[in-house]
């Protein structure tokens, strides 16, 4: 079942089509890789799908039944979408724990005003922080963490959302090998639980071992798609990476 699909999605920056009539499908229980050289439009595609950039054409279909011609960032959570950011965007001057609690508590303004986080929220945050090994630091400010720890916290924040579609924009970059295993396990677990996991990654070994399906982008268009093993052997994919 497709949880998110685009039809002829277009995003322009001035005269440049950074995303050019792209059709992609993200299926439940599958880990889909998005690969392509720098500047090929992977992050722009994610930013457009999560409403950070307004789309300039095409349709986004959620769970095969809601067709959208515009996506607002504030509504993506209700469609079950969540993400991490390539350039790690944490709430720097808040504690590690608060960075998680803020996505677990009440969304409604009045509800939030009369709510203090409950034991349930604390337990959930504790579980997730222990999973990424950051529980010891839960009282420290997010801004004081190392780069790798910051990436882990961002992944933890996305996982706390209990979403249906997860976008991970280069989650492995800058992580040491032990932590890569932890993140791989988290992605696997999300997939096993029936979510659609979208992974932007440059490490082809990781794509081969993790992805069920992958799309190759170049200059804003999909130049190849299919199982990673087959796709990575295609001549046009090798050319795109090596530059002919």
């Amino acid at each position, binding site marked *: 079942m497709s949880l998110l699909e685009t039809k002829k999605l277009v995003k322009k920056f001035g005269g440049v089509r950074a995303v050019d009539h792209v059709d992609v499908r993200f299926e439940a229980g599958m880990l889909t890789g998005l690969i392509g050289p720098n500047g090929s439009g992977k992050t722009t595609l994610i930013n457009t799908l*999560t*409403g*950070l950039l307004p789309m300039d054409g095409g349709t986004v279909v959620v769970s095969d039944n809601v067709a959208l011609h515009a996506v607002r*960032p*504030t509504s*993506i*959570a*209700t469609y079950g979408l*969540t*993400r991490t*950011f390539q350039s790690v*965007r*944490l*709430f*720097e*001057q*808040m504690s590690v724990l*608060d960075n998680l*609690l*803020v*996505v677990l*508590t*009440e*969304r409604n*303004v009045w*509800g*939030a*005003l*009369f*709510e*203090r*986080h409950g034991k349930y929220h604390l337990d959930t945050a504790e579980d997730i922080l222990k999973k990424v090994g950051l529980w010891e630091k839960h009282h420290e400010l997010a801004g004081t963490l190392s780069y790798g720890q910051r990436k882990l916290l961002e992944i933890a*924040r996305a996982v706390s*959302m209990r979403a249906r579609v997860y976008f991970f924009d280069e989650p492995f970059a800058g992580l040491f090998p032990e932590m890569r295993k932890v993140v791989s396990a988290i992605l696997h677990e999300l997939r096993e639980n029936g979510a659609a996991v979208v992974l932007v990654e440059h490490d082809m070994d990781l794509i081969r071992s993790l992805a069920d399906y992958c799309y190759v982008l170049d200059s804003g268009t999909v130049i190849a798609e299919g199982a990673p093993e087959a796709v990575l052997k295609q001549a046009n994919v090798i050319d795109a990476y090596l530059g002919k």
Partner: protein
Amino acid sequence: MEYLIHIAILVSIYSILGLSLNLVVGEAGLLSVTHAAFYGIGAYATALLLTESGMNFFLAMLIGMVITGAIALLIGAVLSRFDGDFYALGSLGFNVIVFSILLNWQSLTNGPLGIPGIARPSLFGFSFESNTSFLTLSLVLLALVWGICTLITRSSFGRVLHAIREDEQAIQVFGYTTTYYKLVIFVLSAMLAAVAGALFASYITFIDPSSFTVNESIFMLSIIILGGLASHRGAVLGAAFLIILPEALRFAGFPTDVAAQMRQVTYGAILILLMLYRPQGLLGEYRL
């Protein structure tokens, strides 16, 4: 002694202003330069209700808070679409508009002549006529405002405000319609400023528009930036510091012919030194 009580009352009033402004600037990171407008609307609403209808001060203050909140809702509905520098400039514009209305709506506000003869509060036959009793009332209201601010900042709502301060777009992605949060905290902050306005009007017993200028808003910003943003204790300390410092400099023994100027220079120099060596304010954790 009377003099010290007078200073203490002013410190309480400005502490209330600092605490309430801190909700918007310190907690939510929105640089609002329009707080004096709400202080003024609260003061005028209370003063007019007291002089025109002779109702009880506390009832007048509550109605004044509601009126201020309603106006803040209109202003905030526009402002909450902005962030960063645009928020600061937009809010400054609203302060100028409110000041001009207070100055020129002669039939309602009596224009530059102001409203004299505002009564001191009374409750169940007890009048807060003496300054000592008025100070007690100010401190009680200050404690109440402190309590309300604490409830807000410790709630889930308060945590969302912090996230808006840190990265508004990122928190939107996690399902928060930040515009509503910015609007609600702006209105709450304005209503608390109206409490300070009501106290000020009935303490001085006379108000005119000159107390509610943009300069006054900037003074309130200095209070919380000096004291430390997002810190309740910082807001009170900042108010005490900025009210007492110019008074204390009277006793610095400058030669009489340059005393006034030297006070201004010293005052300015202390502000600059503080920003150089303690940019997060005296008690603050958070940096703008």
